[in-house]
């Protein structure tokens, strides 16, 4: 589905992503993990073209996308969330969410902004995430977790084929998180491909089919969850002793 080939991104002397290659199989939930500053977010930015990669290729369903403008990529069915959530002030949460819904061609442009169907769908999603009460709240007047949830809602609104989640669980209440995991799994079963960055190992282990581990811009391990958790390099670089404890 998504293929990253020898991707690099340099900021001055810092090699944030350094010749990184991995694939995200269609229909899978793939996790991208690694220590802080490994280059995960930067890799995301390169894939969704919010940052221009220095070198390398990104293929979405066999098509190269690293030269496309971000909205094109989104229209091709790849949507993402931001680690530090970006939301639109002065627009209600509902508008924030609907803003993300897909636009067909030119003619769609002049359709009413908040079509009845869309509102209904958006409200369902908000309800599921437990944030209906802020539907008409200003997008900037939210708590940290609410912002994350709103991002997620917007993502679900866009009917994507593949989603890139950058630390979706950060700051979300565990009880709610359980439900979200369930939902993501359900969507995945319906065919949605997921690439997820998370530091919550419990979630990663339960959710993912495949794990890619990055450190210092490079892929240091790539495989099934069971394999990766045994990998000494990963344990050392990233997990410390946590896994045992959580299990």
């Amino acid at each position, binding site marked *: 589905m998504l293929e990253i080939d020898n991707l690099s991104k340099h*900021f001055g002397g*810092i090699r944030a992503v350094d010749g990184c290659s991995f694939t995200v199989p269609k229909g899978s939930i793939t996790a991208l993990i*690694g*220590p*802080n*500053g*490994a*280059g*995960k*977010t*930067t890799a995301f930015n390169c894939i969704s073209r919010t940052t221009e990669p220095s070198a390398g290729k990104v293929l979405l369903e066999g098509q190269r996308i690293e030269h496309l403008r971000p909205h094109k990529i989104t229209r091709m069915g790849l949507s993402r969330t931001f*680690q*530090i959530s970006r939301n639109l002030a002065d627009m209600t949460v509902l508008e924030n969410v609907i803003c993300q819904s897909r636009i067909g061609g030119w003619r769609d442009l002049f359709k009413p902004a908040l079509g009845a169907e869309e509102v209904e769908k958006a409200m369902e999603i908000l309800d599921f995430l*437990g*944030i209906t009460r*802020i539907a008409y709240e200003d997008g900037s*007047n*939210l*708590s*940290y*977790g*609410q912002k*994350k*949830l709103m991002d997620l809602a917007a993502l679900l609104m866009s009917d994507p084929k593949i989603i890139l989640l950058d*630390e979706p669980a*950060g*700051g*979300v*209440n*565990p*009880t*709610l*998180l*359980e439900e979200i995991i369930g939902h993501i799994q359900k969507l995945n079963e319906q065919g949605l491909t997921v690439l997820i960055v998370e*530091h*919550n*190992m419990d979630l990663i282990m339960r959710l993912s089919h495949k794990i890619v581990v990055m450190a210092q811009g490079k892929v240091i391990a790539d495989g099934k969850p069971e394999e990766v958790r045994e990998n000494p390099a990963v344990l050392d670089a*990233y*997990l*410390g*002793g*946590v*896994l045992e404890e959580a299990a």
Partner: protein
Amino acid sequence: MSELLHVSNVTAGYGDGPAILDGAELRVEPGKVHCIIGPNGAGKSTLLKAICGMLKVRNGDVLYKGESLKGLRPDQVLRKGICFVPQERALFPKMTVRENMRMGGFSMSDKSGLEKRIDEIEELFPILKERRDQHAGTMSGGQQQTLAMARTMILKPDIVMLDEPSLGLAPKIVQEMFSIMKMMAAEGITILLVEQNALMGLKNSDQGVVLDLGRTLFSGPADDVLRDPRIQDLYLGGKKAA
């Protein structure tokens, strides 16, 4: 029981909007680690903002060592010894890491020891030393969080309030962070933290507080909080928490 900080029956909200906090209670004991948990949007961050003076307390009072903090500006509260690290990282994106650290000591009246103190802290967080001259805004999410944490240690305050300190940190660093926190507590610094990584937070705390519906629903020893099945169900992610 001697309490360092007492939030009594506080009502607060944003602008002229509704009261987000409505009768919040909190007792903070010296030298202990307190962990506040609750669902998203419950008002946890709002509570911390109200304490540190970023938000106006509409009703009730905040007493620190018996003195009211109501109406003080954040910089004044800081000078009383309460240090706050907000959830949206409070860094200066276009200043270097080192300059950010220096800003941490801005309120010190005697700046002679500052550089040395920064050096000491940098030893604890090697990444900061390595990235000394990088602009803070270009650091990764976790690196920024580390910087924000490290910066509070410069002042040696009485109370440190941390809003989700583990957010975005790799598991290994989270562990380190909690051990640093314990170290600080051992030095007599009182810690008040908000955590959505609730299990981890509570396990490393002495006291647990549940905040929901703008009120304090429960407070007591952290172990009690961890063990209560209803709390597990509502706030800790259900059965698997056990």
